[in-house]
């Protein structure tokens, strides 16, 4: 069992590394990612979880036992957590094997058992042949695996990972992603993962906690965060988005149906509205570039259709990215390969109401 409760956690000597009133419930065996731009407080939160820093207020409890509060902090060595550092923090004066075995030797375990368990951990990350090397003699990806083996060898119930893939090249990063996810499923360890890379967060997590300026913005599944971002910041941070400011003109007739938003005196969009968005309230309409259909002919629908001119296009391999200038805005559109549109060509853009997401510009959904 490893259930983490973070309540009202606050830490901040300077504004950069502040965490302000963070509440988070992380379930046993869950893979949770703390996601946000640099300085959002995600790494500070991880260090607070590890016991490497003390909170100014609030508390952290593991399975109901308070391990960090303003009154005291359980020392990191007594928390039985594992941690993978961004720099890997492999000890340069020890061999790969000694690095992995270190945590076990501290437990006064029999030498034979230490050897067996360290070798098993190295085998798990596919490095059983490299135990005698020094860390400096390994590639970045191998070092990353040693760090992983070292943090898993003591069989922690919670593993903390601080941007563990950020020092790897793109190909390796993708492979390690798959391996990490697989490892988490196999071991059933609760993972708390910190990254600034939204693609990584979406690929790995059961749930993502998006943070900005020390505050939690949204805590939900990757899909929910991508499709229904709680505010403008998240919409912008999680992938590409067209964001159009507007005013609610018609409330939805029934709950869950689209309402109408005026994004321009002359342009009205049918869009899903955020909870509590009444008439005349300001909302931002988010449209993902891949949700917009681009055609030469007039589409056979009368709402949510705009016409415009292609001003630029770039071929991205799996799709084509267009900028289309309409009467009022420039919209980003992504379409599959196939029909190609030339610069200066007149096109029609359309989008179904379910993909026009009205969001509260300042909203927070925790």
């Amino acid at each position, binding site marked *: 069992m490893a259930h983490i*409760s973070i*309540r009202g956690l606050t830490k901040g*000597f300077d504004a950069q590394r502040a965490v302000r009133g963070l*509440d988070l*419930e992380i379930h046993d065996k869950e893979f949770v990612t703390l996601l946000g731009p640099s300085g959002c407080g995600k790494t500070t939160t991880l260090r607070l979880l*590890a*016991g*490497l820093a003390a909170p100014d207020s609030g*508390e952290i*409890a593991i*399975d*109901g*036992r*308070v*391990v*960090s*509060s303003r*009154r*005291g*902090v*359980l*020392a*990191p*060595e*007594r*928390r*039985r*957590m*594992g*941690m993978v*550092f*961004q*720099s*890997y*923090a*492999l*000890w*340069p*004066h020890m061999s790969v094997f000694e690095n992995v075995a*270190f*945590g076990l030797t*501290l*437990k006064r375990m029999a030498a034979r058992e230490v050897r067996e368990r360290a070798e098993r951990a190295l085998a798990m990350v596919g490095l059983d042949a490299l135990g005698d090397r*020094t*860390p*400096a003699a390994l590639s970045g990806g191998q*070092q990353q695996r040693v760090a992983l083996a*070292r*943090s898993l060898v*003591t069989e922690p119930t919670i593993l*903390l990972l601080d941007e563990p893939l950020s020092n790897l090249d793109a190909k390796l990063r993708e492979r390690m992603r798959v391996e990490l996810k697989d490892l988490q499923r196999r071991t059933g360890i609760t993972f708390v993962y910190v990254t600034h890379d939204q693609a990584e967060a979406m690929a790995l997590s059961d749930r993502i906690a998006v943070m900005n300026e020390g505050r939690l913005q949204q*805590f939900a599944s990757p899909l929910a965060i991508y499709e229904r971002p709680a505010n403008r910041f998240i919409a912008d941070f999680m992938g590409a988005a067209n964001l159009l400011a507007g005013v609610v003109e018609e409330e939805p007739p029934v709950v869950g149906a689209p309402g109408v938003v005026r994004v321009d005196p002359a342009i009205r969009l049918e869009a899903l509205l955020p909870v509590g968005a009444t008439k005349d309230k300001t909302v931002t309409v988010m449209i993902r570039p891949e949700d917009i259909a681009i055609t030469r002919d007039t589409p056979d629908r009368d709402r949510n259709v705009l016409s415009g001119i292609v001003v630029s296009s770039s071929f991205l391999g799996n799709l084509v990215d267009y900028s289309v200038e309409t009467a009022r805005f420039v919209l980003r559109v992504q379409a599959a390969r196939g029909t190609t549109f030339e610069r200066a060509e007149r096109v029609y853009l359309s989008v179904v109401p379910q993909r026009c997401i009205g969001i509260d510009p300042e909203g927070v959904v*925790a």
Partner: protein
Amino acid sequence: MRAAAHVGRAGIATGDVEASSVARDAIRAATLGVAVAAFLLFVGYPLCWLVLGAVGLPAEFSPHSLVRAFTRPENLGALVNTALLAVGVGLLGVVLGVPVAWATARTDLPLRNVFHALVGLAYILPPYLTSVAYIILLGPNAGYLNRAIASMGIHGSPIDIFSAAGVTFVIAMHVYAIPYFLTYGALQSVDPSLEESARMLGARRWTMLRRITLPLVAPAITGGALLAAINSMALFGPQAFLGLPAQIVYLPTRIYGALGGYPPRFADASALSIVLVLVTVIGLSVQRRYLGRRSFVTVGGRGARPARHALGALRWPLALVFLVVVASSSIAPLAVLVAAAFSKVWTEPLTPDNLTLSNFVAALADNQIAARGVVNSFELAIAAATLAVTIGLAIAYLDLRSQLRGRRLLDYLAILPLGLPGTVLAVALLQAFVRFPVPIYGTIWILLIAYVARSMPIAVRGANAAVRQVDVSLEEAARVAGASWLTTIRRILWPIARSNLMLAWLLVFIPALGELSATILLYTNGTETISVAIFRLSDLGQLEVVAALSTVLIVVILLATLLTQWLAAGGQRTTSDATSI
């Protein structure tokens, strides 16, 4: 999603947290606290007494001594002599150091590495040993050179090393290494394209040197001259060995005189010390500001090495001139001392009948003062280096690994002894410990404290570099893996930082082994050191035994220096290992 289900049990659990973290913090706090307390006792406490002493305390509060420090003719004379010495050494340092620096850094001069190493050797030799060597070389009547001149029919010993000029010369032969190394470093980092573009615009080599290169490195040259001048004021050794016999008195020797009489005039000594400290500190801050503000030298990471100028026909003649300068400051004094050490009579040439080992027997066994000095010096240097590096490690650790308030202040306090000449430090310690509850005054412990205090800047800088080399995440990873603070220090920090800490240890050990300027005021019968034995025996004219002692000291210093070079090379290797991970 907010669950309050665990709050009920939280209160009980927090109790454990508090108890365990307090117990663990106690080990850490105690370890670091003891080190900091020792540091404050060794450096801060004596400094307070120095200031109190200068205004007549504890006897009576009066500004009398401070006034007298400037009005007494003897004191004024010492002040003037010291100022003249500083100016002379500063100028001479530039004249000797800068041309050699340019030649080794930027020309195809032969034997460049030899020159470079010999300048280093000149700086390593304790300057009082150079003084002894020059007494043998240039002493009136008996000195090698004067006898050579006499044999040519000119009598009356035209060269007398026991003079203001002699003191200035011998000190310059030691400290010209400072402008040399600073200029050398600056010349090496000049961006060659700055010079090349001047050549492209039609400047001849000499014009380029005068209008581009020289202005670029001018801050290093003036900074070096200033440092050399500041250094010269504090060098008790040559001032005493060469100045006192001719009754030429400088501030340190004047302080020595004020404390040598009965009763010792502490107030006078303190007031003069304050003057010396003020001049030193002002000089250091001017030098720092000057170097900081006017550093045009571009340390480009583009790997462009400045081109070497071809000296052409001047190559060997210039090398010969420079060899005379550099050898006179290093090899020559060394050779003279070693030759005298193996001579029955130092004034005779080193022929087979004049050869003997008896001077070494005297120095190491028969002569009580010398033999005691050797033992005391080794004990003191080893203990001082160990203690200083331990304290330095604690201060560096606090600075780099804690959020403790005042840790910056500690770091700053630790470099204060840089502005304290040995003589001044001794005056401060004498007054601080003469009425200290624990008997330290008049024991070997006061010497230990003096050595530790003097070496704090080096020890703290060295330990700081050693700790900085270990990324904090390496220690954090160990904590998360289950290691306690103490285990983390022992198994992670220490093994990685060890070689750099050893380097800091040696950098304290080497100067401590030959320390004279503080020792001379603090030793008593029984706590003599090598330096004191050399001072006293040369006063008695036993130059052969002095030479033997000097030889022993030099051999140990050279071996230790080689070890530091080796460690520094090895240390760099582990640093790159650690950062590549």
